[in-house]
């Protein structure tokens, strides 16, 4: 139960807002990080903590695209197919990923490793094509890099398993004294790209 395992964190989050209901997104993230996806029980648990009717929380889960109400792969690969990405290689990348993984959009590989999704603009159009794997940005992923990308993600999942961390996003996060700390893998911005003088 979240309230037992993450009590201090939950209290800190709720303390940021004059109204408890405002904590619904952060608590849903916490539940999703902990359980891997938002099962009906997980959603009801969040509702109970916030003293909200469960239907209100179910509605919120349905509204936002980053919440998963069914199990997904260890890695959810989200490829931006918006303008301009779609005109500078995103469609070729999606085709390559589909061919290599043998799945279509919204499907998960049989080994449970990858779920493939098309998403709208990820706000990194200058580094197109852009992929978000769970919450990590990976830039300039042209179709030739599809294999490399998948191998890299498989290796990270194996490493996470060895460390004994579980949960959908756990391999990207460590629990530090300040709460959950993200381990950035692909630098958010590479200065050498900003060739501006």
């Amino acid at each position, binding site marked *: 139960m979240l309230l037992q395992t993450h009590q201090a964190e939950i209290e800190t989050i709720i303390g940021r807002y004059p109204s408890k*209901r405002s904590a619904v997104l952060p608590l849903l*993230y916490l539940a999703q990080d902990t359980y891997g996806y938002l099962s009906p029980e997980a959603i009801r648990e969040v509702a109970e903590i916030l003293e909200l009717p469960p239907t209100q929380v179910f509605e919120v889960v349905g509204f936002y695209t*980053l919440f998963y109400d069914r199990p997904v792969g260890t890695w959810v690969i989200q490829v931006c197919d918006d303008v*301009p990405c779609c005109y500078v290689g995103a469609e070729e990348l999606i085709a390559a990923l589909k061919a290599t993984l043998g799945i279509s959009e919204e499907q998960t590989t049989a080994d449970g490793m990858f779920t493939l999704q098309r998403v*709208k603009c990820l*706000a990194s159009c200058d580094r197109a094509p852009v992929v978000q794997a769970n919450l990590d940005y990976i830039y300039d992923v042209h179709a030739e890099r599809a294999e490399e990308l998948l191998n890299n993600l498989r290796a990270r999942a194996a490493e996470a398993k060895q460390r004994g961390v579980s949960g959908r996003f756990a391999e990207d996060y460590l629990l530090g004294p300040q709460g959950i700390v993200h381990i950035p893998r692909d630098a958010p911005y590479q200065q050498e790209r900003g060739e*501006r003088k």
Partner: protein
Amino acid sequence: MPLSEYIIMRELNHPDINQFAVYRRVGGWETYAAALREQTPAALVQQVKDSGLRGRGGAGFPTGVKWGFLPKGVYPRYLLCNCDESEPGTFNNHQIIDRNPHQVIEGVALSAYAIECHTAYIYMRGEFASAALLLEQAIAEAYAAGFLGKNILGTGYDLDIYIHRGAGAYICGEETALMESLEGKLGQPRLKPPFPAVEGLYGKPTIINNVETLANVPRIIEKGVAWYRSHGTEKSPGTKCFSISGHVNRPGNYELPFGVPLRELIESPEYAGGMRGGRPVKIIIPGGASAPWLTAKHLDTPLDYEGVAAAGSMLGSGAVIVLDDSVKAPHVAYKMDEFFKHESCGKCTPCREGTHWLVKVLHRMAEEGHGEANDIPTLHSIYRQMEGNCFCLLGESAVMPIKSALELFPEEFEAIVKG
């Protein structure tokens, strides 16, 4: 000519400015500290008004004027910093955070003091998990140095800043939808009026500004109104981080004075460096997906609010998408309207249904290459039913791509109909 001193992208002058100590060394947080000790909130609002700073979130509304709308004597007030950044083509907010995070936090803090508020939230799109972490660290450093918290620097002023992450929904960038989302509800827009300055978050007076807007504030107060106004144009003072993408050689963010010609941004080797493979410019979308399209004949348009409006479009968020002649106009309209359909919050019929039908017809035409005799009148009729009838600007924006495409490239639609 590139700027010699940047207002926002200061990592170009001070490469390690993302480190708190370096930011402090170049005078960071001093403006805020001095303002708390020596200036009244009203004096700060007046300077922002005089600077002519205009909101970078899309509408270009004068920031100081907006701050002046707060009803006197009504507290608490809230400040919201909008980092939802989800419109195709826009990508400067999170890069500003990645490279110069402390200035964003100082901007939020200084603006909060100016509008007499004690709680500010930075609303970030859910995907920006690592940028959110960077800001959390910058905030923690500011607390540790005594710039945030209770009785700041012994002045009696209290301020808390929190990060709030959205979870994937473009509409939450619309100011009232953002407030709904922050209150834990579905991110659907509210009826206006009342405007947020009067009745906003939790029903209290609220100011909402874009990340880039607020990052300007410390520099305006530090260097003065005259210095700020020495950049840009009379009506669009200052600089803008233009985000340029598409078929250009060097896509990226370039901070330039307002009024720079579109051609210079696209062609200069200092900036976007011309078109890939030297191909001709076909479509220019100068202000994010919501802006009407321009073409190569508009290359001499000055990039300020007035100049782009005079060319028949809008500067919006300053996100310039440039596409070459390898694209087909009906397909670009299809992709753009697919975005709006995907992001429609479903609250009102003209937008929910209109985007659905636009995409249905455009998909058949542009993806399957299959036209029907009535397609062109049908497309006109769909967007005309949307125009002026949508509850918020998302639906109105969805009209732009199809209307522009039909107006500028009618022959490409006719060709599909003829088969």
